[in-house]
């Protein structure tokens, strides 16, 4: 055992030994290598919403200020009931497939 040298003395010398290392561009180099900044989710939602509103407005004015809506209603009214059921089923199926895909991709991200 070396009782002559106290632990404090040794620890102080060790801390002295660890002199400060000047940054000298190190931090800048690290920041340069970081992946590009992500677009924030809230911004993404705002952008999507704005695009949807603009596209809807454009479609409304280009189609004669919504005249197509009345015409569409008329066509629906005279449409056979079986065709409407078929359409509703098709849309339901599409939504279900979309939901399943979304759930699978979400769980995949979670597991990664």
């Amino acid at each position, binding site marked *: *055992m*070396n009782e*002559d*040298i106290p*632990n404090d003395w*040794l*620890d102080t*010398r*060790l*801390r*002295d*030994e*660890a*002199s*400060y*290392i*000047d*940054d000298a561009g*190190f*931090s*800048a*180099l*690290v*920041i340069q*290598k*970081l*992946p590009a*900044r*992500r677009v*924030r989710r809230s911004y993404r939602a705002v952008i999507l919403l704005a695009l949807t509103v603009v596209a809807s407005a454009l479609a409304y004015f280009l189609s004669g200020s919504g005249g197509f809506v009345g015409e569409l209603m008329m066509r629906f009214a005279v449409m056979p009931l079986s065709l409407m059921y078929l359409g509703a089923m098709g849309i339901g199926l599409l939504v279900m497939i979309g939901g399943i895909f979304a759930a699978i991709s979400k769980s995949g991200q979670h597991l990664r």
Partner: protein
Amino acid sequence: MALTDADLVARVLLNDDHHAFAELVRNHQSTVRGLLRQLVRTDVSLADDLAQETFLRAYKNLRSFRGEARFSTWLYRIAYNCFREEARKRKELVGIDEAQLAAEPDPHTVDPALKHDLAHALQLLPLHERTAILLCCQNGLSHDEAARVLDIPLGTVKTNVLRGREKLKRSLALWANN
């Protein structure tokens, strides 16, 4: 008022704030690079490459930092893992060269300065003792924190620190009265 590590981490997580992360790098680069230089021993550029990798990994995995330990402890763990991965590829980074041990010099005759003797004595320690000494005695981590960084039992850390200290004291015995 200077922001704490926790504040900076929160800013990075919430806003992907690169400036906040740059501040974290500036605050910790010296200790992380210092630790890696001591572990790698000779190759300063390799140590800096590993330090860079450490901070990049820290950025990518920042969400896994839960604030239970100090940010510096978490960083040391990443740095040590980077070093370990590199050491698996390069055998010269691990253990102690027997020839170097045999050539252990008399601190009084070879190196006139205590600083040099201490650095030399540190280099001669086996990796596990050197790492424990660097973390606990030089960087001020508790034994418990060091055990978490190194992913080894607390008792092993204590033993490594004790043995490392004894060896350092033996190497520096001639400086005891100075």
